């Protein structure tokens, strides 16, 4: 009984501690400005979508959001295109130098991405893609790709080779067996890792704000205008950034432990 009360008590504390800031920022983004600046008013008289509307429409927030989505989509697409076959090779083949390659991919994860941001601008300017979304996507890919390689290695090694071999025995080629047997089995895990990759790109702020001036992603836009815009716009922007990430993590919570285990190694 005492244990039960303890559990309930601690659970409530945890929920309050972690959810209150989230709740309050959503509340602030929906609070009319006169209520927000009224020191005596904690809960607003009514809720309004004014700030969100202004953020999206008047302040071009929709464009930054769209930019973020495009960057994430490109980075994810590129990372999986290049990284999935690499992950497959690292699980299914035995060859000299495999561990060294794997380790060096792992090592890139402990590498502060901000140190590459400055030279990247010069490279992009030389390539003629300075200040474009594609250039941001390329930079995001440089840290999402190692994650994708490692995560697909772990997902694929969780799928018995024998399924694939059975496919080969019963008439499929090696590639056919991968496409028809292994890929469908790996799909839930791969989808979850794509969502994680999305969150990584969606949240990245340093590189995006260094690399772009006109075509900014949402966090870069916020970082660069936060100090000059009214508070409730900041909170609207914070809400816009937080909600999709929270929803996505809800859908992938089953994979949470393994994903973060990999992405942090």
């Amino acid at each position, binding site marked *: 009984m005492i244990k039960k009360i303890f559990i309930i008590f601690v659970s409530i504390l945890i929920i309050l501690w972690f959810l209150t800031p989230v709740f309050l920022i959503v509340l602030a983004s929906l609070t009319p400005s006169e209520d927000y600046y009224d020191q005596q008013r904690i809960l607003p008289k009514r809720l309004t979508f004014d700030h969100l509307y202004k953020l999206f429409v008047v302040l071009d927030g929709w464009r930054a959001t769209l930019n973020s989505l495009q960057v994430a989509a490109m980075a994810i697409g590129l990372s999986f295109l290049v990284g999935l076959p690499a992950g497959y090779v690292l699980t299914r083949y*035995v060859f*000299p130098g495999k561990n060294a390659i794997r380790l060096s991919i792992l090592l890139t994860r402990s590498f502060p991405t901000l140190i590459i941001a400055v030279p990247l601008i010069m490279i992009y300017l030389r390539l003629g893609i300075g200040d474009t979304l594609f250039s941001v996507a390329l930079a995001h890919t440089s840290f999402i790709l190692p994650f994708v390689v490692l995560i697909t290695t772990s997902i694929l090694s969780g799928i*018995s080779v*024998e*399924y694939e*071999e*059975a*496919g*080969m*025995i*019963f*008439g*499929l*080629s*090696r590639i056919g067996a991968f496409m028809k*047997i292994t890929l*469908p*089995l790996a799909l839930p895990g791969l989808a979850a890792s794509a969502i994680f990759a999305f969150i990584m790109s969606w949240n990245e702020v340093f590189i995006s704000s260094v690399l772009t001036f006109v075509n900014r992603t949402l966090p870069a836009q916020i970082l660069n205008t936060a100090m000059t815009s009214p508070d409730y716009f900041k909170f609207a922007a914070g809400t816009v950034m937080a909600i999709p990430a929270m929803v996505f993590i809800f859908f992938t919570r089953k994979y949470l432990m393994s994903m973060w285990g990999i992405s942090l190694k």
Partner: protein
Amino acid sequence: MAKVRIENLKKYFGSVKALNGIDIEIKDGKFVVLLGPSGCGKTTLLRCISGLEKVTEGKIFFDSTDVTNLPPKSRNVSMVFQSYAVWPHMKVYENIAYPMKIKGYDKNKIEEKVLWAAKTLNISELLDRYPAQLSGGQRQRVAVARAIVLEPEVLLMDEPLSNLDALLRVSMRSELKKLQERLGTTTIYVTHDQVEAMTMGDEIAVMQNGVIQQYGTPEEIYHKPANVFVAGFIGSPQMNFMEVQILKEKNELFLRNESLNIRLTDDLKTELGNKIQNKNDVFILGIRPENIHKEKTDISKFEPIEGKVYFIERLGSDTIVHLEFKGTRIVSKLPGDVKINEGESLKMYIDLSKIHVFSKIDGKALI
């Protein structure tokens, strides 16, 4: 159905020689067991035959077709995997039908064959289920049904019974064997379980260190082991081994060491006499536990040994006696109802017509 011929097959993984020169010819329609301890290369050999593993050197023929460099799908083999590898995202029906779907069979033909295979394996009522809803034994039946549905030339099985519980394993043994006899498909079956090998195989290839040590019928393997390894690997409890010298005295041959002095029977004398070149060589005497008895019938063919009973394993049907005999331990298998106590002194008799003698140098059997 096909004859399988393998010539000087080698498979190296880096510096590890998994297969080191395999030569074997498997007759059409035979059930052949590859038997050996783990790491002996039996699974690698099976995988080379299937095409899942590329060979380093040597050739594999199905009948007269050289399949060495063909991918698995072009070999007309099928396989039952150790983990069954029943695809979890397909229902049982689809699992069995898939090999035919890949090969472009028409729908009616597929259905007819799936129903036939399912009926043969007694899984007709499971066709609509997913593998996750099946027990291990049922999954195994699905794997077998999938493997036979296309009537392959060669059926490969990689320790298919090792994941089943003991009771099911015994019943599946006979069922698989009967199925193979009915279908007549050339079957190659990998196991480390000698009982499985002895009961199922028409022929057994005993492997060790990437080499086939002996290829023969179960009777040959058991009664005429080709070398010390095969003699020691087959049979439980293990064969007793003792180092001896062979001495010639007055037209008689003696196997002798500090504790034994055995005069060879006339049959063995002639058989062995021809094979001995150097009198000073050391040999290994091998005696199976069941060939050491508590009673003798004919003094000339039995050699007595006397020692103290060190330990007794009562297995019900048998009694395994560990006898301390002049510094060595000799294991004997006696009937289940013998009255012996630990610590007592016991006299037993070696059946001299059933002894084995191996060369100590290369381990090869002499008699």
